[in-house]
């Protein structure tokens, strides 16, 4: 079985991990165009080469980042997300006028 090196838990069988998709910059959902949002949600480069991806070590619920080659399936590097994300990412939904009325009712 393929072995993935978890930055927190060490080398483990790949069956303990869940793929979480590419690390991407999220556009501001309140101000971006529909096309930008669609691109973020649905579209992908999907090329052969090294990609930077989120992975989850399921038994510990630990998310980390891996650099993996999509042709050879080789994992070049894994690291804690704090290397990229230094602060918590907040998600603030835009309050629609009608929605706020419903809340006050």
């Amino acid at each position, binding site marked *: 079985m393929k072995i993935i090196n978890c930055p927190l838990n060490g080398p483990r069988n790949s069956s303990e991990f869940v793929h979480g998709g590419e690390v991407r910059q999220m556009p501001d959902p309140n101000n971006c165009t529909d096309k930008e949002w669609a691109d973020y949600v649905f579209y992908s480069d999907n090329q052969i080469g090294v990609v930077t991806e989120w992975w989850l070590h399921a038994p510990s619920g630990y998310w980390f980042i891996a650099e993996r080659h*999509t042709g050879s399936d080789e994992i070049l590097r894994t690291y804690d997300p704090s290397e990229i994300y230094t602060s918590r990412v907040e998600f603030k939904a835009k309050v629609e006028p009608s929605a706020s009325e419903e809340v006050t009712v």
Partner: protein
Amino acid sequence: MPFSLLKYGLNKDYPFEQNADLPSPSALKPHYDVVIIGGGGHGVATAYYLAKYHGITNVAVLEKGYLGGGNTARNTAVIRSNYLTSEGVKFYSESVKLFQGLSNEFDFNIMYSSRGQLTLAHTDAAIRGFRQRTEVNKHFGGKTELIDPQQIRELVPSLNMNPADQPVLAGLWHIDGATARHDAVAWGYAKGATQRGVELHQLTEVTGVDVDKGKVTGVQTNRGKVSCGCVVQAVAGHSSIVGAMAGIRMPITTYPLQAMVTQPVKPFLNPLVSSPALHCYVQQTGRGELVFGGGSDPYPLYNTRSTMELKESLLAHAVELFPFMANMRLMRQWAGLTDMTTDYSPVMGLSPVENYYLDAGWGTWGFKATPICGKTMAELVATGKVPELIKPFSMARFDTFRQVNEMGATAASH
């Protein structure tokens, strides 16, 4: 049955068929009206219908390997139309109808075998989904019924009705379900197309696409440059990579899908049986082998290596469905690349590049659509208008959030 087959049977001598083989390869011409990238089922079917219905024969099919050697040869040859949405059912039903007449049309046996396809429900939620699919199918003229465990037992006596402690509660019995020899489909189309003047160039890899002012003008290959009026891209498993050559970014992620086949045994299993809950489908080919398919690999990859854990879980589930299979030997196992879209429907029609037409996003549902894809893509190329049948599958649907969700209608959940 094709009459020539009957003639074969009654003939004393071994009948030698003239022009049995494809025309030998020639030099690439500097210009074609239509270049089709990809010599799989979809590509040669498009060429065939272009020549047959639209009289367009200045067509080159460029294939980097050999005819039907990619995912056409790697799928598990399931033909069905019991989908979830009206768009999907209409489209795939047309395909099933075309498949039924192909052997006669080609005068070449594609070994179409109408067996019926049985999908098993192990939960109430699955039964609800089946009810919806039954009604949608019937509405569009398909033959699909919801059947009870007793009927399932009669159809498939060898099935374990309590696999993995998940009792079979009901079945979606798709009478139109069928299988065919996937290679023969590609060969039949290729033969028909080349006989009408289409050129099939194998070992010809497209390495670049020339786009001038938003319009495609030609392609570069390992055998030189070719100019063309339009391009049809039909490269299942590499859609994003070829698309990128034309500067097109796609709503596709590519995953391997593994399958395997056992030694041949006497016929015992007529319908194609699948269990989405157990991520497994099983069918017996005309040669007696059992073909297994399952869910996709758990993460994207451009690699057809096989993995032990997926084999293990797939076989464990297959043995749950048919316990005696534990004694059978595997003969072959392989993987194909599936271009998955988020709504499990294809990406067909126009692209952001003028005269560059897409036949992509064929995930795990491409083989069954081969004839209708060829027909509609040919119509699109010939008329420049997107046929009604494939309008819902345009790539632009993702930009307007109008997906055609067929995720619930796969034979094995991916």
